[in-house]
């Protein structure tokens, strides 16, 4: 089958989450939000957050029209960050950046994101996977806009 060698990238869970994301909706009210923009390819998404009493993420949601990789990454991200503090999320964002660049992670908390490890074989797609995290960390920092081309 001609697409066998892309199964490492387009795992079933990626295709399933991109088609039927669980966290794609317009959260209202919300406590923080940021737009992520990849000007090179035209992808855009919005991440919104609600905090609990301890300022942990009670819920994360996103809205986007993007490729399968960015959609699945955003949806899995929203799973993983629930109940976590801003510091924990920033640590995960760094670990995720490393995962999609190298294909490996030593952080057990990253297990649900391992289906995206295959992105490391596709350098031009790394920014698709990291854009949701760029927007999320911007929202945590109180910024409303983030670009894949800025740090």
């Amino acid at each position, binding site marked *: 089958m*001609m697409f066998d060698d892309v199964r490492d990238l387009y795992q079933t869970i990626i*295709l*399933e989450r991109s*088609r039927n994301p669980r966290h794609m909706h317009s959260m209202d009210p919300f406590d923080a939000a940021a737009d992520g923009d990849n000007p090179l*390819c*035209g*992808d855009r998404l919005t991440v919104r957050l609600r905090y609990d009493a301890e300022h942990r993420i009670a819920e994360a949601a996103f809205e986007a029209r*993007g*490729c399968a*990789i960015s959609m699945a990454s955003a949806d899995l991200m929203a799973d993983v960050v629930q109940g976590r503090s801003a510091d924990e999320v920033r640590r995960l964002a760094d670990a995720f950046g490393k995962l999609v660049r190298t294909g490996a992670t030593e952080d057990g908390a990253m297990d649900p994101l391992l289906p995206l490890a295959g992105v490391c074989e596709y350098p031009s797609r790394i920014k698709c996977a990291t854009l949701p995290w760029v927007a999320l960390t911007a929202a945590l920092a109180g910024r409303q806009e983030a670009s894949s081309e800025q740090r």
Partner: protein
Amino acid sequence: MNQILSLHAKNFDVEAIRTNFPILSQTIRGKRFVFLDSAASAQKPNAVIDAMANTMRTQYANVHRGLHWMSERTTDAYEAVRDKVASLLNAGSRDEIVFTRNATEAFNLVAHSFGRGVLKPGQAVVISQMEHHANLVPWQMLRDAHGIELRIAAITDAGELDMSALARTLEDGRVGLVSVTHMSNVLGTCNPVARVAAMAHAAGARVLFDGSQATVHRAIDVQAIDADFYVFTGHKLYGPTGIGVLYGRRELLEMMPPFMGGGDMIGTVSFERSTWAEVPHKFEAGTPAIVEAIGLGAAIDYVNAIGMDKIEAHEAALTEHALVRLSQIPALRIIGSAQDRGGVISFTLTGAHAHDVATLLDRNGIAVRAGNHCAEPLMRRLGLDSTARASFGIYTTHDEIDVLAQTLEKISGFFAKTGAA
């Protein structure tokens, strides 16, 4: 050279042409390399590669300043390319050809030297909705720095210039320049540039045409279309990167101040003041892209040896074939339906984002572009985030288009099947 001459004698032989491009014989991930991204940058024939290597091996020194044999020979070779470009565009004079780094620099040159030096605050520049960022951002910068209004002429849903919308932008007589593309890098649309020039001139405006795509696909005659400025880049015309061209009507170039200052663009220099060299050297500050210019000259010789008319016919047949084959794929939508179009086709595939389409094509050895194609406002006008784009060159075959269509059919099935939940 014999190879080129033998091509000239025969009819268009795409297999013979392909042997001139060494990169095309590679395999990518074990698959035959199908390169359908020439609109982004074209591959290079041996004639160009050899001309540049031979220059550096045997005939290289700085130009316009050496009182020695090697510099004189290199200057001759560099300046000969100006004649070749003038002939390619049918310019009235070689002095109307300015070498730049690329088309983007040529736009910036006009925006700076004509925009600030000739246009007056309160005047307007008109571009269209289908322009590349290179023909938008310099005018935004001019607007903000110099009080020039920027007007955007609409396009139709078919992806053609809306000529009545263009006429409306010209009505108040305040437009100093109309700058539109000769051929869209997204839609493939070829615009009626002679008509645009006539309308602009009747309204007292000058015209600049972006020939980055058109120069590759058809013969250009800047006098026949009555262009005031015309820009293109070498690397899309099978030449190297780092060399572009601005054609400008002599009387305009003469009234424009320099773009950048430095060596090679001056008459006399003292600590108090300097005078400028004559056109076109006034606009070529610093050591130019000597080797790249010579490479561009070789590229022009190469396409001329094949024949621009034959290239145009080959690409028209390819485009026709591709439009038929791609329109047979139910989930595929071709963006734009201009009557006059070149070998650039943008499309979307239902259920599959353009990036995913491009990645799956790439895994099968097929190179296309995906994204907004440096035309983000056009994407918004079309209601799209991104498209995939296949673009053709002299080395593209009908068989490659069939491979593209067959692979797209399978990709469409891949996402339709696995996406169902």
